[in-house]
């Protein structure tokens, strides 16, 4: 099995996919760190308490005027409570530092960028062999088909993990020269729960930033493994690289659009994309549909990962390989 994984790793690297992924990460992170750096410079002399108080007042005015839909009301109330919490505890939120940049990357990249990158890496791991005709050789060697697919799945998981790891390391390395480097122990407040009743502060936990970051990345890692499993299935179903990568990207982007623009279609909560931004939900971002608890999201992703993996194995081990 180690030999097979070594083969798959070499092929994945030789196809230059991973180099492209790292390139995209570096480019995006460089641009974002620059903008953070600009923000930091502009905010050097600001009175953050006054600013936050102003924001709270604005939101309260909006609420008082009424005539906004209930879910918008809910999130406004949540935001007001969150800001109030910072004011009460005299903590400056949103101050860019390199550790916060790393932490924010998990949320911002987690909901679309990282899944897209994993999709690019993995969606043709099988279909490229079909397209290039090398499947005929790969499948006529004395290795059972399920072992071949397992080696591909493990390789994908490895690279999904590596992509996330590189994202974290790169976001620190790229932002550290321009943003304050320290602050790993800064307190973070997570667990702002929004229910129908409103904002609940009693579930709020205070964690040091490094610990909070680990949790966010752990959740993101889990989400990316699910994405990798879905990518594997698509690469088995389709016989061309373009079709499988295209379908993967379309379902990620299309799914994200659907969950953002039609929150009334409640069946949308069973789409894997609605559960994908685990790090966001952990931070307190309200999920697009009611009833999406963290347990539900983790469970949903697990079901998707298992179901797609089963489909991939059944198809791959049973199908006839024609030209």
């Amino acid at each position, binding site marked *: 099995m180690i030999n097979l994984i070594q*083969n798959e790793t070499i092929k994945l690297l030789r196809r230059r996919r991973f180099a492209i992924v790292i390139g995209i990460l570096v480019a995006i992170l460089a641009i974002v760190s620059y903008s953070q750096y600009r923000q930091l410079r502009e905010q050097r002399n600001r009175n953050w308490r006054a600013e936050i108080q102003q924001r709270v007042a604005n939101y309260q005015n909006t609420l008082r005027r009424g005539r906004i839909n209930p879910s918008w009301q809910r999130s406004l109330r949540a935001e007001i409570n969150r800001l109030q919490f910072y004011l009460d505890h005299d903590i400056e939120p949103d101050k860019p530092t390199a550790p916060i940049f790393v932490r924010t990357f998990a949320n911002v990249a987690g909901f679309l960028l990282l899944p897209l990158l994993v999709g690019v890496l993995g969606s043709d791991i099988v279909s490229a062999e079909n397209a290039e005709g090398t499947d005929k050789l790969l499948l006529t060697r004395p290795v059972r088909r399920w072992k071949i697919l397992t080696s591909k799945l493990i390789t994908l998981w490895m690279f999904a993990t590596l992509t996330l790891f590189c994202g974290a390391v790169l976001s620190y390395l790229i932002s550290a020269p321009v943003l304050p480097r320290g602050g790993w122990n800064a307190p973070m407040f997570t667990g702002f729960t929004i229910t129908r009743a409103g904002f609940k502060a009693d579930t709020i936990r205070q964690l040091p930033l490094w610990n909070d970051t680990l949790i966010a990345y752990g959740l993101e890692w889990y989400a990316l493994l699910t994405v990798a499993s879905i990518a594997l299935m698509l690469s088995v179903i389709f016989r061309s690289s373009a079709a499988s990568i295209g379908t993967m990207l379309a379902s990620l982007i299309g799914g994200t659009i659907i969950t953002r623009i039609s929150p009334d279609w409640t069946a949308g909560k069973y789409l894997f994309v609605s559960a994908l931004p685990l790090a966001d939900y952990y931070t307190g971002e309200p999920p697009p549909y009611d009833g999406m608890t963290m347990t539900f999201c983790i469970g949903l992703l697990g079901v998707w990962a298992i179901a797609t993996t089963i489909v991939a194995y059944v198809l791959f081990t049973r199908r*006839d*390989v024609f030209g």
Partner: protein
Amino acid sequence: MKAQASETSALVASNLTKVIGKRTIVDSVSFQLRAGEVFGFLGPNGAGKTTTIRMLVGLIRPTAGSVKICGYDVRHQFEDAMRCIGCIVETPDLYRFMTGRENLEHFARMLHVGDSDIERVARIVGLSHRLDQRVREYSLGMRQRLGIAQALLGHPRLLILDEPANGLDPAGIREIRELLRGLAATGLSVFVSSHLLAEIELMCDRVAIIHKGKILRDGTVRDLISSQRAMEFHVTDVARASALLQERNVPFTPNHDRLFLPIEERDAAPIIRTLIDNGVDVFSARPRVQTLEEMFIDVTGGESVD
């Protein structure tokens, strides 16, 4: 007796059948390959050649029938069976973005063989000096040879090669032919499909002809050709000669100014004497050895070869 035969056979295909939808693509195809034999598999396009080969190597699951390689059932003892073979199915597709050596290393890792075997097979096919080039830059002939090198990596007892002469120049074809004959001399069995009949005739000990999913003929090249042996007579008066032969109940086929008789050369003398005695002059009488190609066109009903 029969069980013993299949044990020593490198390859036994029994009643292989593939039905897709309502179409029977391969219909009860059976044949055997003995050790050290070069077996030719011949058929026009769409005859079921490739489907049969894909069933032999486990890429397609047969609707009925079985394949045994070195005594191992391809479906139930896949790994054991595959350890005995090296193959190229259709085109010699290897990873184009890797070098020849990286490709061989890739497959060596699947077979648990080492660098010495990579050097060995590269030497056999004469690619040692081009091994560190990307396959993308290889000519079709070089890819064909790299494909054969890959097939030889695991010390197989049976080689299955689909159209190995494809894309090669005449010198390359000859090289491959000598290579395969040399390998067969060491006890390796070789299964070759080809559309080059002359090639099959030169290279193979035995041939099977497949058409519309069925095997029409199966035998040694010599037997297949001699079964079609005839004497060709060129005479002055075909009508009169025909009448004379009919009187004596000798079977024949007239064709313009010639007559074809399904007889051996040594039996021609009395016929010639009869014709001349009855006033029909014989310009020539010669044995006509049918080529495999003519026989092929005969048995497949004149459809073009691949």
